[in-house]
Every structure is written in C-alpha cells, then in structure tokens.
C-alpha cells in the first residue's frame, strides 16, 4: 500500500501508546481512515473516534513511539492495489510485497518502509478488446494482459462511472500509464485501488451447482464444497487444517488461488513458496505458483496487519472473480483473525462479549463469508469465490465462539478429529460429524459427470460408516466375535472404506491427488467386495473366511499407482475367484 504525500489532510499528535493501539488528538479523521503515525510515518487505521481523540491500530511495531509525535491523515481508506503483477506475489497483511521488503530491509521485518503492492516500473503487453466508440460501464472488460499463464482482464473499476471510449491503445504499458480514455475525459490505467473492507459489487449472486473438485476423496466423495461455496475446517493443533488447506490450494480445480496465512507459522509459508513453483497444475501443466497469490502475516507479525490480512485476501479474490474466474480462497486461520479483533478490541476497552471476543465477532465472520459466492459479474460473466476457513478452537473444543459462529454461516463442515490424527488416519476428518449442505444441489453434476451410480454409492458408504459406529459401541462391550455374522462383515467393509477410500496420504506422490473417476472406481470395488460378501454369507460361508479373502487386502495398493486400472482389474478378478471357491466349498 502506498499513499501519496499530497493526500495528507490534517495533522494531529500522539497522546498515548500501549501496544498496537495508539491514541491521537487533533486529527479530525473519519472511521477507517488510513493515517501515518509518528516520525517514522508508520501506517495505521482509525478504528474509533472518541471526542477529539482518534484511536488508531498501527500495522507496524510501535516500540519507541512517544507522546507528542505527529500523526497525519491520508483521508483514504485501507485499500489494495489491483492490476497486473498480483499473481505469484507474496504479501504481508497490508499488501506489502515481502520480496521487496527483503530487498529494502533485509531478512527481518523492520518498520517504516512502504512498498507498492504491484510493481510500477514493469511494462505489460496490453491488448485492447474494447473499441473506440464502445459504451463501457463499470466492470466492463477493456482489454487483457497475459500475466503468467493466466490472462489478466483489465476492467473499468466498479467505483468509476463508465461512458463512451474516446481512445484505447494496445501496447506496452506500466500499470500507471493510461490505456484508455472516455469521451468525458476520464482516464483508465491498468491498476486501480479498492477499499478492502467494502465488497466489490456484482450483478447477481447465484446458487452454486458445480463442485470444487479437490482431488481429496473424503471431500469430493463425501462432503463436497461447491464452486462459490463456503467451508470451515476446525480442529485442534496438529490435526491437519494447514495440510488440507494446502492440498486444496494445490489441487482444487479453481483457476486462481488466494492463500492467506493469518497469524500462523513462517515456515509454512516458506514451504508453499518453495513447493508451489515446482508443482504442476494437473489441468494446465503450468507451475501452480502462476495462479497463486499468498498473503503471509505470521503469528509474530503485527496483529493489526493480521486483522487486515483477511480483507486484503478476499478483495484480491473478488477482483479475479470479476474477471470471470473461479477463485478459491483459503484462510488459515480465521481464529487468529478473530483473536486479532479481540486483542484490538480489548485495548479499546470495549465491552467484551463471549470469551472476551468483541460483540461484533459474529457479524464480521458472516460479512467475510458472505463475500464468497457464484456470481454474474458486472460484465455479465460468471465467476466465483469459494472460501475455506480454518478454525483453531482452544483445547480443540468446538463449542467456543469462533467455531460456533462460523458454523452458523458456512455450508460445509469438515470436522477434524485429534483421535484420528493421533492414529495417523489422514485426512483426519471425522466422517460422522462432518457435513455438506451442497449435496442436493451438486447431485445432478455427479450424475452426469461421474456416474448415475455415484450418488447411491455415496449414500451406501455413509450408511455403512454410520452402522459401523453403532456396532463399534457394541464391540467395545462384548468383543467382535459376539456380533451377528452379517454385522461382522459390515465391520470389515467399513474398515475398507476407511483405510482404502478415506485415508489419503498428502505426501505420497500419487495419492496426493485422486481424480473423480478413480474415487468412483475405488468405491465401486469396495462395494463389490461387500455385495459378494453378503451373498457368500447367505450361501453359508463363514464370516472368518469372508474376512480373510486375500485379494481385498491389495486394494490400498492402488492408491499409490497412477495407472491403477490394470491392477484394480486384477484385484477384482482375484477377489471373484476367491469368492467362487469359497461358495463352492460351502
């Protein structure tokens, strides 16, 4: 973020400094104005007006600030810069490019340094699509730039008036050079700013009907999220929130990915930075980094910037949506965001709500998730933002306010479970507690794109898992031998569903991504074992014999094989012949 010198309006002085929140007087500022604090002109934002006093959250470390230092108001709101140059970037919470900060101040984040969000000197090849004489309205596409392998569409900023095009030129431009003028003299550049706390307008919000395919079996298969949908993934520490989010960032079939590391670990962001350029998008074959934007405001970076990071991310996501793209946004972790709100709020001495969180926690969360959606853009195209938020409940207890308020809003709930992660059942998503409210609307897609058999197969698997849970309770009391024969088989089938289908190793080169067709084939194979087992049992074969069918034990192996079909065929044939032998000797 950068603010022009001449835009400073009024001058004030610092009165009090206590942590990231400071008080200034004489500023005459409005709520959410961006101000420059102290001799070093640290960036801050007005978050409370109290008589002549303005309470400011400062986005940088406030050590050494003294009462009496100057504060000036820029009169602008906190905004992000939107234009070519966003892709592959890594930003802090207020869109300062971390790469540039390293050049300017070395390996550690010092303060008082500003850096533009997108490069000013770089020239981009702009190809005009609109023509002189065209009438363009806000959001209309003027032209495009081949940014990475992604085409970056240049739009009339939604907060400007449209009109008739007087000039428009293809050619090589920086983001600040004018590429188009209107008859009324309005000039457009490739870059514009958008205030992060204001959702970008759309023509219409629609109901999602297409799943975001993630290549993760338990997600696509059992609890799918729609393109334009919302999901929450709560879980205690070490249960797999970050790994799941990163899997989605890698493999989901979104066209653009915005990944927000909000108050989490530095090494995790480094991992993404080192890994993504090496990985290929399964669809385009291009490095995954080319479609990715990272926001990294780690746990030890200033909390106020952590609070802003989520807005910075969602605004960038909306911007790409407005170009007609399917964007997915991961926020890891929304709890750290909520805690930043809590920390700031407690310094404002606001009346705390539940567990010290501010009373507006629920409102902020729902405003954020409301910015997801499948939309018709102002230009009439279809675009979407899917939002997946990690939640980190204290002590892993889901009854706390952030989890509860999030669950009230989101449509998909992937409940991580420490019991599963402790036994290295990954993804440690509890299949009994999790849900997707998109199942019905997505059903037709699975019918036509996967198989008409898929939806019944899914319901069957869920029933088996439910049944297993009930049976396990009995087993815990009396042992498995005491179960009726059919139910001993059910237990074995459920084990296969868990160990073959649900377990998926994010670190295995092949298993990390599983296409829908393979998911279907795997589930069908388990179903085939189940059907043959019940038939054999009815024909008098003992459960012990059925359970010791050897071929089914090879099913997990197909996870690790790319061209799995011949292997699977072999297993199915072997299984059939084992059953035939069993039945004939019964």
């Amino acid at each position: 973020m950068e603010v022009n010198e001449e835009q400073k309006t009024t001058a004030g002085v610092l009165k009090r400094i206590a942590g990231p929140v400071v008080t200034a007087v004489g500023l005459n500022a409005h709520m959410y104005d961006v101000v420059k604090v102290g001799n070093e002109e640290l960036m801050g934002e007005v978050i409370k007006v109290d008589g002549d006093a303005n309470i400011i959250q400062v986005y940088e470390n406030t050590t050494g600030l003294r009462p009496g230092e100057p504060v000036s108001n820029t009169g602008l709101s906190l905004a992000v810069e939107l234009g070519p140059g966003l892709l592959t970037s890594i930003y802090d919470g207020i869109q300062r490019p971390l790469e540039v900060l390293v050049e300017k101040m070395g390996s550690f984040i010092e303060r008082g340094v500003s850096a533009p969000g997108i490069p000013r000197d770089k020239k981009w090849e702009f190809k005009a699509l609109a023509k002189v004489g065209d009438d363009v309205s806000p959001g209309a596409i003027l032209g495009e730039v081949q940014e990475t392998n992604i085409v970056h569409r240049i739009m009339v900023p939604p907060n400007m008036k449209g009109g008739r095009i007087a000039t428009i030129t293809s050619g090589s431009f920086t983001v600040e050079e004018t590429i188009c003028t209107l008859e009324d003299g309005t000039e457009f550049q490739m870059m514009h700013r958008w205030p992060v706390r204001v959702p970008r307008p759309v023509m219409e919000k629609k109901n999602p009907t297409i799943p975001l395919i993630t290549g993760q079996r338990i997600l696509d298969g059992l609890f799918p999220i729609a393109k334009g949908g919302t999901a929450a993934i709560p879980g205690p520490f070490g249960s797999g929130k970050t790994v799941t989010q990163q899997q989605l960032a890698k493999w989901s079939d979104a066209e653009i990915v915005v990944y927000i590391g909000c108050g989490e670990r530095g090494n995790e962001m480094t991992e993404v930075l080192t890994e993504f350029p090496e990985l290929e998008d399964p669809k385009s074959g291009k490095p995954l980094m080319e479609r990715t934007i990272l926001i990294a405001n780690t746990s030890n970076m200033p909390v106020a910037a952590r609070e802003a990071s989520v807005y910075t991310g969602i605004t960038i996501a909306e911007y790409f949506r407005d170009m007609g793209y399917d964007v997915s946004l991961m926020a890891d972790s929304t709890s750290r965001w909520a805690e930043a709100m809590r920390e700031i709020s407690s310094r404002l001495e606001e009346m705390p709500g539940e567990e010290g969180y501010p009373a507006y926690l629920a409102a902020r969360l729902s405003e954020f998730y409301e910015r997801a959606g499948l939309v018709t853009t102002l230009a009439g195209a279809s675009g979407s933002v899917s939002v997946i938020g990690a939640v980190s409940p204290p002590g892993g207890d889901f009854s706390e306010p952030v989890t509860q308020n999030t669950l009230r809003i989101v449509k998909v709930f992937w409940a991580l479970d420490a019991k599963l992660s402790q036994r290295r059942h990954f993804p440690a998503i509890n299949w009994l507690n999790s849900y997707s409210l998109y199942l019905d609307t997505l059903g037709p897609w699975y019918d036509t794109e996967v198989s008409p058999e898929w939806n019944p197969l899914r319901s069957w698997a869920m029933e088996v898992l439910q049944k297993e849970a009930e049976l396990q309770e009995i087993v815990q009391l009396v042992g498995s031998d005491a179960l009726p024969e059919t139910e001993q088989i059910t237990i074995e089938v459920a084990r296969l569903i868990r160990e073959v289908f649900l377990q998926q190793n994010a670190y295995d080169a092949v298993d990390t991504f599983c296409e829908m067709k393979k998911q279907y084939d795997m589930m069908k194979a388990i179903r085939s074992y189940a059907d043959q087992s019940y038939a054999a049992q009815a024909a008098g074969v003992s459960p012990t014999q059925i359970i010791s069918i050897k071929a089914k034990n090879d099913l997990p192996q197909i996870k690790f094989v790319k061209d799995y079909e011949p292997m699977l065929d072999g297993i199915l044939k072997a299984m059939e012949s084992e059953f035939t032998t069993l039945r004939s000797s019964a």
Partner: protein
Amino acid sequence: MKEYRTINRIAGPLLFVEKTEPIGYEELVNITLADGSVKRGQVLDTSDELVVVQVFETTTGIGRDSGVRFTGEAIKMPVGREMLGRILSGGGKPIDGGPEIVPEKRLDITGAAINPYARSSPADFIQTGISTIDGTNTLVRGQKLPIFSAAGLPHNNIALQIARQAKVPGSTEDFAVVFAAMGITKEEANAFMQDFERTGALERAVVFLNLADDPAVERIITPRLALTTAEYLAYDLGMHVLVILTDMTNYCEALRQIGAAREEVPGRRGYPGYMYTDLAGIYERAGIIKGKKGSVTQIPILTMPGDDITHPIPDLTGYITEGQIVVSRELHRKGIYPPINVLPSLSRLMNLGIGKGHTREDHKKVSDQMYAAYAEGNDLRGLVAIVGKDALSERDRMFLEFADLFEQRFVRQGIDEDRTIGEGTLDLGWDLLSTLPVEQLSRIDRELIEKYHPKFRAK
C-alpha cells in the same frame, strides 16, 4: 538523562510514573533505590499524563522516593563470541564469577519477525539417537519442537540426551547450545550444569539461569535474551544453535501475573488474551535464513498443569510450534525410559527431513505403519480389560502384542543409548512390523516391503 521521583503507585510488578517528558513505548527504564542499587524495567503504556513501567525484578525496596530514569532506547543485549562457556543470570548478568561480557554488538531483545520470504525451508535431519524422535517424530534443523511434560517426569533427562547426542549425520559444522532456565529449581539446574560439565558441552553453551527463587517477572526477558544470543551465534557467527527453554509454564505464569497487575480482561483460565501472540514472538524465532550459514532450532520444555494437554499453555504452544513430543506418565509408571507417547506426539517438519537423500526412502511409510499398528493395539487394551483376551480375534491379538513390543523395544532405550537412524531405528521398526502378517501392512507399498521387510531381506 533526567531522573524522576514521581512514582505515584506501585502494584505488583508495575510502577505508575507521573509528570514525565514524552517517553517512548517499550523503553528500558532504570530505577535507583535508596541504597543505590539499580533495577530494570520496561515501558508498557505511555501517555502525557502517566507512564506504566513493568519492573523485571522484585519491586522490594522501590518506593515513591525511588529515582526513575528512562534510557530512551529499547532493551538491548550485549552479545559477543566470548559468551560461549558462560553462565548468566536470567537477566543476562554473568553469575559464574567471570568478567563482564565484552560486547561485539548490542541487539534489541524483542527481535524483529523474520520475513517469511527470507526464510529457507528446514530440511536437515537431526539425529538425536532416540527412536521415538528420529523414527516417528523427526527433528530437523530450524524447527521448534517442544517437549510437553508434566511434574515428576524425566523431561530434563530427555532434553539433555538430545543436547548430548544431537548431530546432523555427515556434517562437521559449528554448533552451540543456548540453555535458558526459567523458574526451575536449583537441583534441576545443577543436574543440567553437571551434565554440561561432564560432557564438555559447556564450552559450546551459553547458559541463562532464572531459578525458582529468582524474580518471576525476570522470566519475561530470559527467553528473549537467550534467543537474541542464539540469533547472534547463528546469523552473525554461522553456528547451528540448539536452544533449550525450560520451563515455559513458568514463563506463562509470569505473563499472567503481569496481566493481572495491569487489571486486563483475562482470557482463558486467567491467562492474557495476547498470550498466543506473545508466545509466537518467542517460538517463531526458530528458523533458517536464506543466505546465512547458521540456524536456530528450539526445544522448549513445558510442564502441563494437571497433565492436561488442553490447558492454555500447551494448547497455545502446540498451535505455534511445529509439533510436540509428549512425555507420558503412564509409560513412566511402566518403567519405560524415555516415556515418550508417540500417539499425541508429532513433528510437522518430519516430511521435509526424511526420505531418500535425507534418511531412507522407507522412513515415512514405516513410521506411518508403526503408528497405525500401535494405535490399534493400544485401543484393544481397553477392550481386553473388559472382555478378556480370549474374546479377541486372532488379528486383534497380533496388534495387541505389537503394542507391547513397540513400547518395550522401540520406545524403551538407554539414557546413553545413541541409535543410528538406519540400523538403530528403522530396521528395528521393520523387525517389529514383521511380527504382523505382510498383508496387514496396508500403509506401505509393495515395493518397499520387498526391499526392507526382514522376510524378504533374508532371502
């Protein structure tokens, strides 16, 4: 520098000073007592009317007549190569009878955040010689991997064993240990010091000691002094530094005490709402920086109040650190050393430091398979207690036996037993797994089984 005698109120570790000139936030403050002794503090809140100072020592002897000087700068730590081999107080003053440290540099103890873009991904496997760490919860250079323990458990022995045995196989680079004690007993401290002396480790160590009877608030700066020293050794002198912080529980208690003195709205169980951010400011100081030779690896130790892993101290720590090694009372009671319970333990950076080119290609899958088998066997123990062993299927009995074997052979080892990763740990893992039928090893690809499984190896 002007001296004020305008202390208006003293509450716990806090002084409220009036009528000052503009004072900087987080400035270092010197307080002179009537007897001429000087105590140090830091500005927590500053405004025209009032400055709140947190004193790092006891406030005993401070009165309204004490002199307050604001130094105009943040707390800095003098650092130098000579610190190696020295023992300092929790406040950074030499207590080994040696000379003052001649500083080569004075560094801000808060430490700025490492720019994530400047970090380099940890990838070097550290062999600790302990199977439950190397095999199943691998430590890598630049990681922060705490030990979650509880009162009366041998976490100090484990930490010492790690400090003694830790090495990066094949590397001869410079290393150092920075040890920071916060509120531990004299006896515990002695055990550490004796071990350091016995093994000659002290020469390569810098020790900070804040003992149980030292001022609690000093504990707020002890880990920061230790990490500032570690960063200097790592990034200026190019050493690989292992930082042991013990006991973080005492640190958090000090934090709570200050919060209470400031009359802040407390968070969960009375700990300040900003404890996550505060702890992150300590733990995130582990890492490796691109273009610099050294690294900072952290092993914080904490004792879980009431053995409760959901208590805010272990909980918030676990949310920041890259895994945790959990010490179990149950295994300790069974007489197993080191009593590390692998099930709730985790190393998140393990995958970066193991496998082909690091340890061995079968590492990950052997580890996963052992976890799964041990977890299953462990569950069955509950069932056996109710229905008896006879009600178990044959398959179940095998897993039950595996769990016992795993504890007795894989977990248990000598306090000076230094196992290599290949033959010492992974092959041992395969030996144990070979007690299960091959087809039960569903986590391992056929290829690896054929290469490493004893049944096939023997052929």
